[in-house]
């Protein structure tokens, strides 16, 4: 309900009469007052947002590398790219202390049980990034010894394409993971009922960035630097 506020005029003798103006429209002062002093949202939402904010800005990576991709991942840890800008520089040597693991490289059939064991040793909340063509799908290696994509046995949060992806691509993947974590809903504590994780459905970046990609018309010619 909208109210009109009419100012109280204190008439001082000798003072000029106040200008008559159209009274301004205001919201219910009571509800304004209440909104200013009393929080009307759900505490749960705030808690989730706060916790997610904390989680996404202090992601501790597990120091885990399989092959070439790991070199580009390590490049992003060092000075020129500096993963510390995203709060993800605390590299852990033990899966038990890490928040996320990056499958950086080819997943081999001989290595798969080891990866599975390491994943199991990570504590919830935990996330997995699949980095590079081999981890995403087997990539160039459709060969007897290679698992055709690490998602055959692990749940993956973000896929980073490339062979290997540039360090910038890894950082972008990390930021996408952060966005996804910001919108996540998981139980704040042990509760009765659903213990699951609700994740926001995200459209593929390939679709989302199509316009942007197609609009690039001037590319560097191979005979120039």
């Amino acid at each position, binding site marked *: 309900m909208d109210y009109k506020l009419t100012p109280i005029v204190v008439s001082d003798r000798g003072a000029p009469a106040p200008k008559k103006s159209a009274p301004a429209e205001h919201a219910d002062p009571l509800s304004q007052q209440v909104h200013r002093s009393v929080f009307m949202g759900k505490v749960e939402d705030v808690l989730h947002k706060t916790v997610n904010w904390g989680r996404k800005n202090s992601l501790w990576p597990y120091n885990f590398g399989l092959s*070439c991709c790991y070199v580009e991942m390590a490049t992003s840890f060092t000075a020129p790219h500096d993963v510390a800008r995203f709060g993800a520089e605390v590299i852990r040597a033990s899966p038990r202390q890490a928040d996320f693991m990056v499958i950086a490289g080819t997943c081999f*059939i001989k290595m798969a049980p080891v990866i599975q064991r390491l994943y199991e040793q990570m504590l919830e909340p935990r996330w997995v990034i699949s980095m590079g063509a081999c981890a995403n799908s087997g990539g160039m290696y459709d060969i007897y010894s290679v698992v055709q994509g690490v998602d055959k046995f692990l749940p993956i949060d973000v896929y980073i394409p490339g062979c290997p992806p540039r360090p910038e691509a890894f950082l972008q993947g990390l930021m996408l993971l952060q966005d996804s974590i910001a919108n996540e809903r998981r139980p704040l504590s042990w509760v009765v009922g659903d213990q699951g994780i609700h994740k926001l459905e995200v459209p593929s970046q390939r679709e989302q960035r199509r316009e942007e990609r197609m609009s690039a018309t001037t590319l560097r010619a191979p005979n120039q630097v």
Partner: protein
Amino acid sequence: MGKSGASTNGLPGSQHPVIAELYQRFGAARIQYQETLGNVPTAWVSRQDATAVLRYLRQAPKPYSMLLDLHAVDERLRRHRDGLPGADFTVFYHLLSIERNNDVRIKVALAANDLHLPTATGIWPNANWYEREVWDLYGIEFKGHPHLVRLLMPRTWEGHPLRKDYPARATEFDPFTLDNAKQDLEQESLRFIPEEWGMSRGTANADYMFLNLGPNHPSAHGAFRIVLQLDGEEILDCVPDIGYHHRGAEKMAERQSWHSFIPYTDRIDYLGGVMNNLAYVMAVEQLAGIEVPDRVKTIRIMMSEFFRITSHLLFLGTYIQDVGGMSPIFFIFTDRMKAYDVIEAVTGGRMHPAWFRIGGVAHDLPQGWDKLVRDFVEWMPKRLDEYDKAALRNGILRSRTIGVAKYNSAQAIEWGVTGPGLRATGVNYDLRKARPYGGWENFEFEVPLAANGDAYDRAVLRLEEMRQSVKIIKQCLENMPAGPYKADHPLTTPPPKERTLAHIETLINHFVGVSWGPVMPAGEACQLIEATKGINSYYLTSDAATMSYRTRIRTPSFPHLQQIPSVIRGGLVADLIAYLASIDFVMADVDR
């Protein structure tokens, strides 16, 4: 033996001293010479004679002390075998003599129903892993081998993947799944059983501790596992376990065209980039009979040396970090980015440019390349001086590495160690100088040497090698020849297009050369190069097809890891970490 003292002149292959020697010693009837490309004299011997011939070469005057390579070929589907002894499988030994500065390849023919031959582990200790690998991938048994079990594939694996009747693609098998039962089974098969390796679990007074380091450990530099038998901090013995990075590159080569295999070579020594392309394309060029123009040679040398620098830089950074110096790696990666600026501008790629082509390179150097290269060669030497001062003369680093994991020249050679690991023991053997290939003979540079062969020397030597690489790059910059960036030859890839619109014949040839790829003449070729980590070689067998019949990739890191137990016994766990760092291996270069 030795009964044919007669002249061996006129017998095939007797222009090679070693073949003449074998004729002398064993008689012409027992040695069959095979014509191959690429300066490796090749002789077939029977299984009965194999051990005697190998032992003779190992002990001959100026001996073949290094077993450079040992592997096998499945000959069953090979059509062009003119004049070769009948064989279903062939085992070959590639031996190298540093004194003679040449090689010899001994081949032994085997029948499919009788797949065994005597082990060579008594002659060269590093035959051990090679024989295990051949058993694993071909199912050929080596009688008398101390412990013939699978090396690359999991223990639970069935079949021998490099056999011609074994499917190549993962998608030809059932999709991979991993349920609890399989997980438990696989984990169980990874359990280390000391008795299997002849180790005891303790003495009467104390139990030994068995420490499983890897396959994922921060200082193992990849998926490498080593099980240590510890008495307190002391390593009594250890067993390296590899195969966690086997990408089947050799099988892959049998189904990719000669051209489309180039990107796979980048990923063998994944820090070596185009250096891997070089060994492969040079071997293919031997098959095709292509002579590349001078500009191509110089461009290839320049880019290869760039990758030697980026690889050695990564080595240096991780090495210093592994012995406790945290900050240099941050500076070093900045230098790597500088090198990548040039590599990206020239090749368009970073780690895996796949930029060399059969008969040339992918395209000419871009305009302005010289400025980028000049910036780099001016930037780098000052930084190297800094690393020398700040890190390599640091007291803690020196005390952790000097005298650690030491081996001498004889040990290095008998274990097949090449590259900086060999030169750190004082052996002056760098293929770029010893047997110049691809144009390195036109450049002035020195081969850095050290004397002690310890973990410290190996690092100092690599730092010096980077200085020499900068020197070579500078010479490339100043003396870049003009001319085409591709040889004028019908078998180059992609094939020359200029004349295709003139006559239908050339158009058809071009179409076939682009779609199926070129057909390389039947034959065998082998190219050894001094790669970033040691001697890398590609031994190609062509059966006159669009694909290789057999591609054997000899990688330097494989024997370097095999040597570990013999060096580190009696050392401490901390020494092992410094030692692993000083080897400079990547697992893709071990397991391929």
